[in-house]
């Protein structure tokens, strides 16, 4: 058995052990709550759960399991439809992910938001065009007014974010990549983000303000790039650390 196979088997056993342990813990949640989310309760059963909301724990559970609204379902549907699109839009525009899509669906004009994609380089054809996608930021800003215009991604202490440089077409080659963090004056800041080069050529860069991203208030510039055979695709995102809301 190769070392890789032994390593895989060891990971498999550990994953199954952890999964089983967590599945047992999840069974402690009364199934009636899941039936609420699935819309399977009778009127009487639902009324009984509503009465139980006087208890804070039951109120929390009711809020979590209450069925998705039709608006929410419509927003999910729109986002899924957008994810299926076979071709990406020609305009390299930042898109919104976790924590922001609901508002994006509800306030379509607010899509102009918060991230600047500065540079997608040209080249001889080793690399396809790339698109930058950002997720994270403070909840308050999810509802940013439609006329707020482009600007930095706003974060505060404890906020996490993820930047993804996504190719238009699958790239099945081992890419090199760079990340760089600068202050508002362009001075480099030592930074060790969590970088993951995903299969198909997507570069994922994650950070959390206060642990692996500076907590000092102010604007920062993050540059991320991928390289292959001398070609490069680079994107720049502006992030601003704000006081906690």
């Amino acid at each position, binding site marked *: 058995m190769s*070392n*890789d196979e*032994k*390593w*895989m*088997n*060891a*990971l*498999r*056993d*550990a*994953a*199954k*052990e*952890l999964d089983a342990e*967590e*599945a047992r*813990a*999840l069974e*402690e*949640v009364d199934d009636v*709550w*899941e039936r609420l*989310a*699935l*819309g399977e309760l009778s009127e009487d059963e639902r009324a009984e759960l509503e009465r139980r909301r006087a208890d804070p724990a039951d109120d*929390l*559970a009711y*809020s*979590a*399991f209450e*069925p*998705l609204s039709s608006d*929410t*379902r419509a*927003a*999910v*549907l729109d*986002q*899924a*439809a957008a*994810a*299926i699109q*076979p071709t990406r839009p020609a305009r390299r525009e930042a898109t919104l*992910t*976790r*924590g922001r*899509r*609901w508002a994006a669906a509800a306030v379509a004009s607010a899509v102009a938001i918060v991230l600047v994609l500065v540079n997608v380089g040209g080249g001889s054809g080793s690399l396809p065009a790339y698109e930058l996608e950002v997720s994270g930021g403070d*909840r308050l800003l999810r509802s940013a007014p439609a006329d707020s215009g482009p600007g930095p991604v706003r974060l505060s202490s404890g906020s996490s974010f993820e930047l993804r440089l996504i190719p238009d077409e*699958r790239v*099945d080659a081992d890419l090199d990549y760079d990340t760089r963090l600068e202050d508002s004056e362009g001075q480099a800041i030592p930074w060790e983000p*969590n970088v*993951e*080069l*995903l*299969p*198909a050529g997507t570069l*994922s860069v*994650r950070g959390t303000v206060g642990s692996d991203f500076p907590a000092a208030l102010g604007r920062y510039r993050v540059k991320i790039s991928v390289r292959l055979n001398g070609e490069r695709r680079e994107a720049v995102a502006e992030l601003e650390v704000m006081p906690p809301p």
Partner: protein
Amino acid sequence: METNHEQVRKALGGDRVALECLTDSLAPVIHARVARVLVRFGAAASARDIRQDVEDYTQEVYVALFRNGGEILLGWSPERGASLQNYVGLIAQRYVTGRLRSSKHRTWNEVAVDELPVIPSESPEARVESRELLVAVVARLGEQLTPQALQMFWSLIVEQRSVSDLSASTGLSTDALYMWRSRLLRKARQIAEEISLEKPSSHRKADQR
């Protein structure tokens, strides 16, 4: 009546009606699993907070199903026994559970990374130590991987599905799947190294012995 498999294919092909049916069928399941995990393991301070988290994660997982040509959805094989709803529900459950884990609070004993993987002939104590570290590695993978990567981890590493089988269902090339496996293993090793470096003093003591 259309099977789930046909519905998935049509939805991924851009059929809006099929996508609407799929959303009606899957979004509530994802929501229910996400809510269960957040109620059991989350630390929401208010009803409003937990609702926001539930909606965010539900959306994130649901949209992830359709990314990259629907890799995750296409990885579902009815022949393997699970319904589409259960398959998707498990993905949601594992992804959100992983995100909520705090592996930093898990305990594990120190073992040198180059001693991995576990060798059956090791002493019982060494096996326990390695096991704890491996569980910590898996926990941290769950914190860091995207829904797609986590599903690949389950398909290729945990369930050890054959590359040819997975290629046939997802449409991914076998080369791409071997690359997935190689990167996931590399990532796991990298995390194991990070964990072992978090307590350097113990290693120094071990070195001195």
